């Protein structure tokens, strides 16, 4: 057990403040966390609680106001483009809205080729690249021959999100950050997407960070859960600890908000 609990990504006093002076908003407020290798972590909170801001800080897309991020035990350094590129080989993301995640002027081939090039495969023969792209597409049950020369907007939302997973399959990062990957997808495709994500995680053993407002989903997939309220982690622990025996009122409320199909809904409290 001891060597399995190797630290992968951790944060100390991580803070993000938007704006200046009287109009400043504290989006993330001194959060500490330790994500271990191979773990599935969920960060759960309502909209506006700072989940996405935290995700962007972890990805290095926005700067941190205060605090440090440690990657594989070392202080993260992404001050130059070269170092950032190196960091992004290790951490990748799937965004919430598949429809806005793609550049509508690029064909699907470009999206997948970018990943191969990022892994240093730019000099591979064309046939090898096509083989890799075909393999990645078939992993998520897409047919590359049908997709080649198509534009992302010609696909359905579910297919786009599956293509995102194919992208991660090609990149094989150490950490995957999934920012509400299923919230824009209809319920029937949702399960498929999650299945592919979990399959990919089980094959590659990558650390997966789920960011979601759906505490049911968090319980279903994760090893540990962080509950976020107004930029702070109010409760954290293993999925069982947090969700079966919640201590904070906020967590209890989140759990109660999960709609239960077989019960009559009490709309008076809404």
């Amino acid at each position, binding site marked *: 057990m001891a060597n399995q609990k190797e630290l992968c990504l951790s944060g100390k006093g991580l803070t993000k403040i938007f704006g200046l002076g009287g109009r400043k908003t504290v989006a993330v407020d001194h959060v500490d966390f330790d994500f271990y290798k191979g773990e599935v972590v969920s960060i759960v909170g309502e909209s506006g609680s700072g989940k996405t801001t935290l995700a*962007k800080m972890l990805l290095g897309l926005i700067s941190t106001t205060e605090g440090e991020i440690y990657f594989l035990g070392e202080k993260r350094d992404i001050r130059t*483009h070269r170092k950032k590129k190196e960091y992004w080989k290790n951490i990748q*993301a799937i*965004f*919430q809205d598949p429809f806005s*995640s793609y550049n509508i002027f690029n064909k699907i081939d470009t999206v997948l080729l*970018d990943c191969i090039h*990022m892994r240093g495969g730019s000099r591979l023969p064309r046939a090898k690249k096509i083989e890799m792209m075909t393999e990645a597409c078939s992993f998520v049950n897409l047919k590359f021959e049908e997709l080649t020369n198509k534009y992302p907007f010609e696909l359905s939302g579910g297919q786009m999100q599956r293509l995102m997973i194919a992208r991660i399959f090609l990149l094989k990062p150490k950490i995957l950050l999934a920012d509400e990957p299923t919230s824009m997808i209809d319920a029937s495709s949702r399960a498929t997407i999650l299945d592919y994500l979990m399959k990919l995680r089980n094959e590659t053993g990558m650390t997966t960070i789920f960011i979601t407002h759906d505490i049911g989903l968090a319980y279903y997939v994760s090893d540990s859960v962080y509950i976020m309220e107004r930029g702070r982690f109010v409760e954290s622990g293993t999925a069982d600890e947090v969700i079966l025996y919640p201590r904070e009122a906020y967590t209890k409320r989140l759990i109660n908000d999960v709609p239960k199909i077989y019960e009559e809904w009490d709309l008076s409290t809404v």
Partner: protein
Amino acid sequence: MKQIIQQIFRSGKFIVGFSIFTTILLVVIVYPLLIPDPPLNIIGQGTFFEPGIYVSVFDSISSPQYTLNLDEAAAKRIASKLGEEDRLAIKEWLIASGIPEGEIEIENTEKLLDQWFENYDPAKNIPGMTNAKRNYFIRLNKAITGLLSDEGMSITVKNAETGVLEEKGTIVPSAYVNVNEVPNVRVLPLGTDNFGRDVLTELVAATRVSLQIGFVAGIIATLIGLTLGLLSGYVGGVVDDVIMFITNLFIVIPSFVLLILISFSIGQDQRGAFTIAMVIGFTSWVWTARAVRSQVISLRNRDHVNLSKLSGHSVVHIILTDILPYIASYVVMALILQISSGILAEAGLSILGLGPRTTEVPTLGLMMNWAMIYQAHILGKWWAYFPVIITIALITFSMNLMNTGLDQVFNPALRD
């Protein structure tokens, strides 16, 4: 791409604007091929010849003559010679001779002349007539009688040795020439300007130069605005602050004042059409920069840009492939507006006398400037300035129409 072009050509406004603009372009390209005269050639001795067909008098005398007996020929001839003043004088005489005012029609030349010959008597005096007036009536009578004679004129040539005039032939009033047989006929559809230049040829050349100025100015302004807008919008931070500071400086100073000052300080000798185009371009990029910046700011936090960053692309690559295509339609529209406002700015500068040097090229603004200096508008010489105004209006109108059409295609909220 093909779909977008199809959609653009389904927009009525764009098609109308586009056809006006291409017509102007075609005229500008084809006309100099058909009539290759230098546009600044001074052909007329004198100012502001009226539009019309000019037939060489010398050539028509030596051209084959035909006799046509037309009834109204004499009447028309007199009608064109008898001025308003003469007709009023005749009326005055007739009234003094006791003809009731109601029976005199000064526009009916035939009847008026009949009455005149019946009543005129050189020996008679009308009350209050001065000696000068009396002589005037005598001259008028002679002129009318001369016009009505059908004896014709004789053509004489001076003998170079003896200096004696030798009669070569006569021209009778019923002699005609066929215009097609006269070797020198010049059509001046828009007459000549104050220098005696053919206005139409000059106008076509001026439109070409003005369009060039507009294009150069528009492209310069759009390039500067686009580059600064992309940089300040995407990079942000200090770069944004510095660029926005400069941009705001330019906004506060009205660009036309800046334009006047720069043109003035360059000096008359240095101002070619291209220099003016550059000056216009360098003073009008401001709004493009601001608009592009705000578009880029809204784009830079989109997920596809984040994804591109995560794929390890460089800033230049992201700007060129993930930002620029998204604002391309907007930039094209801004370019069209910049071109049309460049043409207007040149016209404005030239009217003030700060346009390109006057001796080299005609521009639409310079033509207006000349027309204004030589008081064409006061003298009623409409052909010197009105076609220019129409051309400027058509160019800007067609470009704005194309812009609105494009806007409707690219902005679904505006579709009818």
